């Protein structure tokens, strides 16, 4: 392993960390941003997560996917960070959630940039954001999410529906604004 104690002190070790950071930090940082919703917390999560990666490199089995392994560590670090730092109750809910299912073609013409999409996800409340990211971006099932977050499957479903509803509303606002701007420009 390149992070071995043997390489410590001869520069190889430090260089390896640097290379690894430059290679993987950008996409891992994007994950951190998706979960935390702000840059400051995302930097904390990235730093903690990367340190865990370095410390736990011995546990990584060479046959597996390094990216998937790193991704899991970063996601878990982000979840713990949110849980530790979020003052308000993450999954409090008393009112039921009813999903408004959008048309399949409703978002076909949507031309939001990646940063705008990221902003939309970041604007979600922490509980919605966690479930939405885990379900949509990480492809976990509701059962897996329930186990990870210590909540029920129904809560996970409810959080996802609410997240979708909120995102849909904000997307509609965005699209209406866009249409209005286009009409104004054409007239």
């Amino acid at each position, binding site marked *: 392993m390149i992070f071995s104690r043997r390489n410590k002190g001869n520069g190889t070790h430090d260089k390896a960390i640097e290379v690894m*950071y430059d290679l993987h*930090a950008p996409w891992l940082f994007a994950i951190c941003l998706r979960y935390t919703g702000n840059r400051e917390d995302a930097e904390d999560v990235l730093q903690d997560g990367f340190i865990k990666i370095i410390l736990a490199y011995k546990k990584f089995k060479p046959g597996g996917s390094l990216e998937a392994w790193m991704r899991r560590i970063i996601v878990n670090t982000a979840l713990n960070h949110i849980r530790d730092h979020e003052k308000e109750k993450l999954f409090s809910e008393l009112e039921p959630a009813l999903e408004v299912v959008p048309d399949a073609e409703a978002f076909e013409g949507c031309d939001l940039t990646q940063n705008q999409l990221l902003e939309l996800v970041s604007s979600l409340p922490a509980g919605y954001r966690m479930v939405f990211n885990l379900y949509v*971006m990480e492809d976990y099932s509701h059962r897996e999410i329930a186990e*990870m977050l210590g909540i029920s499957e129904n809560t996970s479903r409810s959080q996802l529906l609410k997240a979708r509803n909120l995102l*849909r509303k904000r997307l509609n606002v965005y699209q209406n604004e866009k249409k209005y701007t286009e009409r104004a420009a054409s007239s």
Partner: protein
Amino acid sequence: MFIRMKKSIRKEQHPLDDLFRQGLDDLEVTPSREQRAIFLGEAADLAGKKSLSGWVYAGIGAGLLIIGLVTGLLIWGDHGSTVNVAYTARVQPVQQTVMTNPGQVATTTAPGTGHKAVFMREKAQASEAPAHPVKSLPAPSASVAPVIPGNMDGMQKPSTVIPATPATSTEPLITQAPVETSTPPSITTFTPDAPDQTTEQAEPFPTGNNESRKQVHAVKYTPPKNWDVCLGLYYSPEWMFNTLNGEKFVNNMGVDGTFHFGKYSVRTGLGLSITTGSNEMLVKTNPYVGTYSFLDSVQFNWDAMHYNLIATYYSTNKQVYDTTLLNNYSYIKKRYTYLQIPLILGYDFWQNSRISLGIRGGAVMSLLLKTENLSGSYNAGMDRVISINDISPDRIDLNWQAVAGISASLKLSGRFSLELEPEIRYYFNSVYESSVNTKKPWSAGMRSALLIKL
């Protein structure tokens, strides 16, 4: 990627999900240069650093093992603390015969013992005494007459040992001593309060012909008591961390007994631990729409004249509910009561007459005794409740904690003392049944106890 596609097929397809998934999947955001520099600086020393957790656990285990061994040695390895010392001594009846003239023999009784000490008072004219010592009688078997220099003010050191005489009579000695010696002053003393010397000197004397004349007394030597047992009432508020739904505060109270031996102590007892928590309930309901009058039956009867039929309608009010199933989430407050059995070892590193400071460490077993609902169930109003399910992870029946603390004990009066003990607990397992994400709880508490010395 293949796995993701496969999983996505099983999942419901949702255009919104697809939009975000496609848009954000390959998103990259470069962290700031400052962040990079900070990380590289911190990470430079990390690789190759061995995780300390294993060593910490090993250290705690070794510490507990050492404390246990020391405790065991002190408790079970010290059977010899009560020493049976067999005195073989000349014991005479309580009788005081003091001869004030020089050269005479005085017999007196050692205070508090009932044993008679026999000695010869030194002649006043010590300088005139011959150099040779008193001719002593042959030493009888197992007779002991220890010499205590400290009791001889103004006397010469004893030069001989007076043999044992029959316990019932001092006559032989009294008569022999002046006759045979008649000259040099000599002192022979016997003090039964000096067991060590007696023991040492008892060995060389052979058992012999005077056995019938001696008396053998077994005297138990008991060292000063350096242990005690205390009974205590304690109360310990505890603040837990890494729990769900902010269930942090725990009340612990109970009775315990502490066995102190020197600086060490072992404490155990029975206590109750009471905490509250909120459980999330999923209530499925059908919304209430309204009420209508449902016609059950119509009865026709002739009127009195039998000209007209009178209809009587029988109906009941029927409530109508929407078929939509609503999921409602509510929280029910519950109280959990645990039985706690601690086993705490202690070492006092500083003690004075009133205050002692020490460290405490050990384990506590918590057994869930009962769970009570404190708040009422979900109020659905007019809606129809289809099902109510408890969806929060419940508490496990048994958990173990490691406890470490610093103890300060203040003696209030002869038998009562007050003990304060800030302590930290680490739970070896989560208190919840299903808690993949929940870290193992730990807690900080302050134990206060009133101790009664038994």
